[in-house]
């Protein structure tokens, strides 16, 4: 399978990053830093797993970063307004699902190209976040929330539990349900989906709504880290997620993807960001470096594709 052939590429990248950064980055190979990487990577994984399914359907979601910021604002504003953290969490998850549903409806029912539809909802989510938060950060949500980012259950950090559960959910959905079959068919073979009597549009909406739900979950972790909400806290984070998926070997055409590749891609991007941070590279240059890695991965993809073309 193409995805299996691709796995070693990202695994080598990750290994090289781990070895290289252990050698040159001060404090990289320490338990405290490993926890730091795990926390950051979990946040990214919660976006990258649904992004993998979305890209497998030949779609894209550019709104995730703005929508994640919006969800942190909704979480903070609702918790503070009502005095109930549970209500805040429910509202944040709902906000994520609503933006995801909006994306899904625009793309599946109105047939809008995904990158433009989600560029539009990016604007909508960012605007809503700014308006709701009046352009400021909202803090003081309370200690209950803080345990999500820093807490531990049976010695395991809570974010790591989030990551494991999220991966398990996506693994089961993709490989053991009719929904998973639909996702694969949406990318490679929409005709087959119709012939099998499955609901093409419904499945596509579900893919984006699922993405929205996980954006909401990610907002709980991010809100916990920030101690509240911020209207521009996660602007551009969708790019790291797309980068992780691309580096992990999921193709932007033909619907080929792998969750395992995405996990490795998330670790590669997370480790790279963390290491560059320790080397005190400014975060602006880190963004450029992630961009360069994505373009390099796409160029490699393309070279391989051309080789296959020549061979056949």
């Amino acid at each position: 399978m193409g995805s299996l052939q691709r796995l070693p590429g990202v695994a080598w990248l990750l290994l090289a990053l781990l070895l290289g950064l252990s050698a040159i980055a001060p404090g990289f190979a320490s338990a405290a830093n490993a926890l730091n990487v795990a926390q950051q990577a979990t946040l990214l994984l919660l976006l990258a797993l649904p992004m993998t399914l979305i890209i497998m359907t030949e779609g894209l979601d550019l709104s995730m970063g703005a929508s994640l910021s919006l969800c942190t604002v909704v979480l903070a504003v609702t918790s503070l307004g009502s005095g109930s953290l549970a209500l805040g969490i429910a509202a944040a998850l709902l906000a994520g699902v609503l933006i995801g549903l909006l994306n899904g409806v625009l793309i599946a029912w109105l047939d809008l190209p995904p990158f433009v539809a989600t560029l539009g909802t990016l604007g909508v989510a960012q605007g809503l976040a700014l308006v709701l938060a009046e352009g400021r950060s909202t803090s003081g949500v309370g200690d209950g929330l803080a345990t999500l980012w820093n807490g531990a259950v049976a010695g395991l950090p809570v974010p790591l539990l989030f990551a494991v559960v999220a991966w398990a959910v996506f693994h089961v959905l993709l490989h053991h349900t009719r929904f998973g079959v639909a996702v694969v068919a949406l990318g490679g073979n929409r005709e087959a989906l119709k012939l099998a009597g499955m609901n093409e549009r419904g499945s596509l909406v579900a893919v984006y709504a699922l993405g929205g739900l996980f954006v909401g979950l990610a907002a709980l972790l991010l809100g916990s880290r920030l101690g509240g909400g911020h209207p521009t806290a996660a602007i551009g984070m969708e790019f790291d997620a797309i980068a992780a998926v691309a580096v992990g070997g999921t193709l932007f055409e033909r619907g080929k993807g792998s969750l395992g590749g995405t996990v490795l891609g998330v670790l590669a991007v997370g480790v790279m960001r963390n290491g560059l941070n320790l080397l005190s590279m400014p975060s602006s240059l880190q963004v450029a470096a992630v961009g360069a890695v994505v373009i390099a991965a796409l160029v490699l993809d393309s070279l391989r594709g051309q080789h296959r073309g020549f061979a056949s």
Partner: protein
Amino acid sequence: MSTLAQKIHLAPEQRSLLLRLVVLLLIGTGLALVSSAFLGANNLLNLLRQASLVFLLASGLTLVILCGGLDLSIGANVAMSACLAATVMKATGSPLAGCAAGLASGLLVGGVNGLLVTRVRVPPFIATYGTLWILHGLTYWFMAGDTIHGFPPAFRFLGSGYWLGVPVPVFLMIGVLALGTLFLQYTTMGQEIYATGSNTEAAALSGVPVLNRRLLVYMLSGGMAGLASLVFLARLNSAEGDMGEALTLQAVGAVLIGGTSLFGGTGTLAGTLVGALVLTVVLNGMNLLAISANWQPLITGVIVIVSVAADALSRRRSGD
């Protein structure tokens, strides 16, 4: 069913342009009724100046979209080109050298996008989205939070000067509209861009150098981003890393409101001009009504969604 427009024999493009002008007029009338400042000479000139900036950027994007592609990097390109132009101008003291640097940087970025799309065959939205973040990161790093400000009057004339009582950028806008329309409608190359966008395979079979035309539109889009960056810089009289951020969504909005189809092959620069005016009038109106700037991305996003949805629905109805 015979509508009035059909009776007076308008081509579909002219009909859609007329429709958009009517919408523009309606929004304008509405604003004039609720805000007395709207029709003031100062406000109208200011509005035209703002619209010309959006149009300059959106005109290059129009060519890319006509050709069936997309360029999400234009806003980041504007920021980087403006910062480079500002740096070179400060270092050499020569406005000409600064302008050359800005234009060259814009063109170079366009060329890289074009090569990624045509030679490496990366899907356009993902290639230009990747370059967006690379440019963004490099610009922020290069500027390190600083602002470069204070440029020679000769340069500032380009963005904030008047000639015959009209802002200079408006003349640039008219020039680009005229030259661009001539190029698109009356040259073989222009027609080949339409052909590539409406049916790439048919165009390739009839001898259109499809890859070269695609490369050309990305370079033109990059070049126009370079030009827009100079006008923007001359108007603001200062360069900052985040200066182009809101512009990409506005340019995409202007092109789509203007009736250029995201599916390639149909659209005009005149339409994009009307689109830029509609968008600018709406944002200007919000400003006059003292609506917080926080609402701007929301409104622009809704406008983008509504115009692309209208395009998709009309295509579905015509059975495309």
